[in-house]
């Protein structure tokens, strides 16, 4: 498989919302390549006839009755907020610049 470049890692870091420095990107590219080299062995035995397992329990949907129960108050829910205003979470600008 192709080598992992710094640009590849930069793209992954953007997807993962982590602002990495150029030095970190270079380091991560090297490490990622080493780790992928070790883990790609899974392909040796993963043939088409084997069904994937996503979870140890074979469960279908789990339902409960739709009953209102006590939950966090507004101030409890806001207690860890980095910023708040008018009993709401205050967040940086989400839409475009203007």
């Amino acid at each position: 498989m192709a080598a992992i470049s710094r640009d590849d890692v930069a793209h992954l870091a953007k997807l993962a919302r982590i602002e990495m420095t150029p030095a970190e990107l270079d380091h991560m590219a090297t490490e990622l390549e080493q780790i992928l080299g070790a883990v790609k062995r899974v392909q040796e035995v993963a043939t088409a006839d084997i069904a994937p397992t996503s979870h140890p329990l074979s469960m279908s949907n789990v339902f409960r009755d739709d009953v209102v129960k006590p939950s966090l108050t507004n101030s409890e829910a806001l207690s860890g907020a980095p910023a708040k205003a008018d009993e709401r979470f205050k967040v940086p600008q989400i839409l475009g610049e203007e």
Partner: protein
Amino acid sequence: MTSINSTAAEMASALAAKEISSVELTQQHLDRISAVDGKIHAFLHIDQEGALAQADAIDKKRASGEKLSPLAGVPIAVKDILAQKGIPTTAGSKILEGWRPPYDSTVVAKLKAAGVVILGKTNMDEFAMGSSTENSAYGTTQNPWDLARTPGGSSGGSAAAVAAFEAPLAIGTDTGGSIRQPAALTGIVGVKPTYGGVSRYGVIAYSSSLDQVGPFARTVLDTALLHEAIAGHDERDSTSINAPVPQVVSAAKRLDVKGMKIGVIKELSGSGFQAGVSARIAESLELLVAAGAEIVEVSCPNFEYALAAYYLIAPSEASSNLARFDSMRYGLRVGDDGSRGAEEVMSATREAGFGKEVKRRIILGTYALSSGYYDAYYGSAQKVRTLVKQDFDNAFTKADVLVSPVTPTTAFKIGEKSNDPVAMYLSDIATIPVNMAGIGGMSLPVGLADEDGLPVGLQIMAPVMQDDRFYRVGGTLEAALLSKWGKPILSNAPDLAVK
């Protein structure tokens, strides 16, 4: 006379007989923490006031004749990944520094309801990603057997606290071995229950299809008592199994393995394991045979692919789970100067708040899940998971329990593997298959390796919701070892109180 060296069961009896109060017992442990935790660094937060208040409330209930749970008044240490209302909960990460959860995890709520006194929160690899506690943002925990070595991880703080007599009981979590490996490396008992056996509600998620909460203690019976106190169905965790809790306490007391078939996993023995580890495991098997068990060899040919599959599945799930740390509702926020948008602030916060290993796994998981690579990596890993489950299913047709060493080596030196992620990952080679299949496993201390005098752990595994089987085998073997040694394994550890 009850002391911090007693077992939790002994402490519980002394409390019930009113030979000691919970306040006295709690204070003894807080004093021990003050005396030795400077060397061990097992705790990230000590809740002296809260613990003594909880102990006092239990003493008052007992004085008034109220019926109490078996472990009421006995102290415990809790891994810093379980939410506890009003108490700092960091998961070993800077991104959660100072966060005080507004609610209790189900396990913490059950401990409180059972009157178990919570001393504080223990150190761990950041978000449970690691095998040594070296990935904690708050410094490494030292192994009580040798301060230059790691106690293992990720629940290294919990294991070290129990091994150093700072607490008789502790809670950990195990995603790929994070309870069993530190238990083995510190000479105590640790159990990863069947997946779904203990609620994950309020446990900060790393890899949701693998994570499981479990108990640590110095004896099999103590571990069973704690297991029963925290296990059971929880409607707040949709993956919690709605079935009776296995009878682990009575199994721990049974002390009989006559007629049981013990399967030795061929692929998890011999080369690749330290000679002193293999020697102690072989002796344990002889003791089990002497106690009436039969040894059979089983083969699990796909286990050699389990480690690789784990390091695709766990990072993939982590990359999704850790998206919640977005600096918007709780935790760290960096660079919000009014000029930067939410996405920029989010990216700056995650860069500043996550450590190296966490970033490494998020990036790896993002890669494994990305379009074009999904089938080759994540998809293939899921198929290996099927093969590992099949290996266990086949092996359990030939044996009641399976055994292996917990770890390839005894405790390694701090710094020895911290710059080589692949070498660090190899320390989980024998524990990971259990998580992949969702079954339960125990780590039992079975002696000290001749080369270095450090503890060795035997892993005992049982099928889904048959956790009582490894308590039965573990309890029997523990009794045989104790009569052989004449004293508990931890009496060989150095005296930490000596300056």
